[in-house]
């Protein structure tokens, strides 16, 4: 059992998912297929860093053990991270990168659309600010999924492989875990009951335009991001992201 209340768990879930996705995007700095695309990817990453800060500052205040948002990001171990399994997966080729971004953006867009009506005013405020950014993230990543899915034979094949590879991690987006059920009951995530259906409808609509099939619902596996049970990819990601603060605690410039 977690030692935090469910609102705090939700804040960690949102903040950690954003920061891990941002870190994956940062890995592409200097490696994107075109200069224009690189700036766009970094913009999305920076938006997510800002959102993570807002969620985690609130989480840190509720945890109230002297740690701030930076301490939560740079000094927490893998088991304490609450992000979606999907976003910790490696970037792979550009099809995997954009498919992962799209699956996350669709979920992110739908959950924020509920959170803007949250009974918790601070949650509603952060969600409203984030939603504008995420609406654009979703348009961009959906466009890329359609472009590649309905593109050349090569790009179509790569998108098919990307969907097949990533689909095993989407059960977390297609189900309501204990934390989400609890915050729905508390009014913190109003209208969250049909979040999985709304996410799947969005994915289905874009995959149809992209001439991609929607796989059968992914079964749950033994991993669970919300409980801190991550794939091996997260530890490696954190080792790089946290290196400086681990090696030189409190370093500043």
């Amino acid at each position, binding site marked *: 059992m977690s030692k935090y209340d469910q609102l705090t768990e939700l804040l960690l879930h949102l903040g950690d998912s954003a920061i891990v996705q941002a870190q994956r995007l940062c890995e592409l700095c200097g490696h994107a297929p075109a200069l*224009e*695309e690189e*700036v766009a990817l970094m*913009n999305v990453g920076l938006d997510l860093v800002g959102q993570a800060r807002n969620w985690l500052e609130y989480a840190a205040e509720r945890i109230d053990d002297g740690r701030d948002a930076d301490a939560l990001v740079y000094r927490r171990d893998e088991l304490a991270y609450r992000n979606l399994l999907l976003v910790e997966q490696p970037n792979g080729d550009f099809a995997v990168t954009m498919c992962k971004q799209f699956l996350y953006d669709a979920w992110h867009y739908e959950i924020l659309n509920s959170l803007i009506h949250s009974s918790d005013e601070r949650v509603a405020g952060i969600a409203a600010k984030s939603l504008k950014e995420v609406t654009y993230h979703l348009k961009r990543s959906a466009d890329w999924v359609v*472009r590649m899915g309905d593109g050349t034979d090569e790009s179509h094949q790569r998108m098919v492989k990307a969907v097949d590879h990533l689909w095993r991690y989407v059960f977390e987006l297609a189900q309501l875990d204990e934390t989400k059920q609890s915050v729905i009951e508390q009014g913190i995530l109003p209208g969250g009951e049909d979040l999985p259906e709304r996410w799947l409808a969005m994915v289905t609509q874009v995959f149809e335009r992209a001439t991609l099939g929607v796989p059968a619902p992914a079964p749950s596996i033994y991993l669970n991001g919300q409980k801190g049970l991550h794939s091996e990819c997260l530890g490696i990601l954190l080792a790089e992201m946290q290196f400086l603060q681990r090696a030189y605690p409190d370093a500043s410039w």
Partner: protein
Amino acid sequence: MSQWTLFEVFVRSKHGLNHKHVGSLHAADAEMAIENARDLYTRRSEGVSIWVVPSDAITATTSDEKAPLFDPSDDKVYRHASFYELPDEVGHM
């Protein structure tokens, strides 16, 4: 991305009345060009409206036409409306 088209980007700022050329970029089509322009040229709140135009749709003057086209107006200062006081009601000109 050698197959991508070169586009010229025009941005209208919050206080500006007209779109101004801000640079160029590559994109597969106009829709992607708008998205790329948003990310490249408006990330510091520079704009409220974007135009993109394929660069090859622009016909430009050449530098060897410069003298006959532009020099003759250099000594015709009377063409500037600088000798009149502009009433406030006129607003932007």
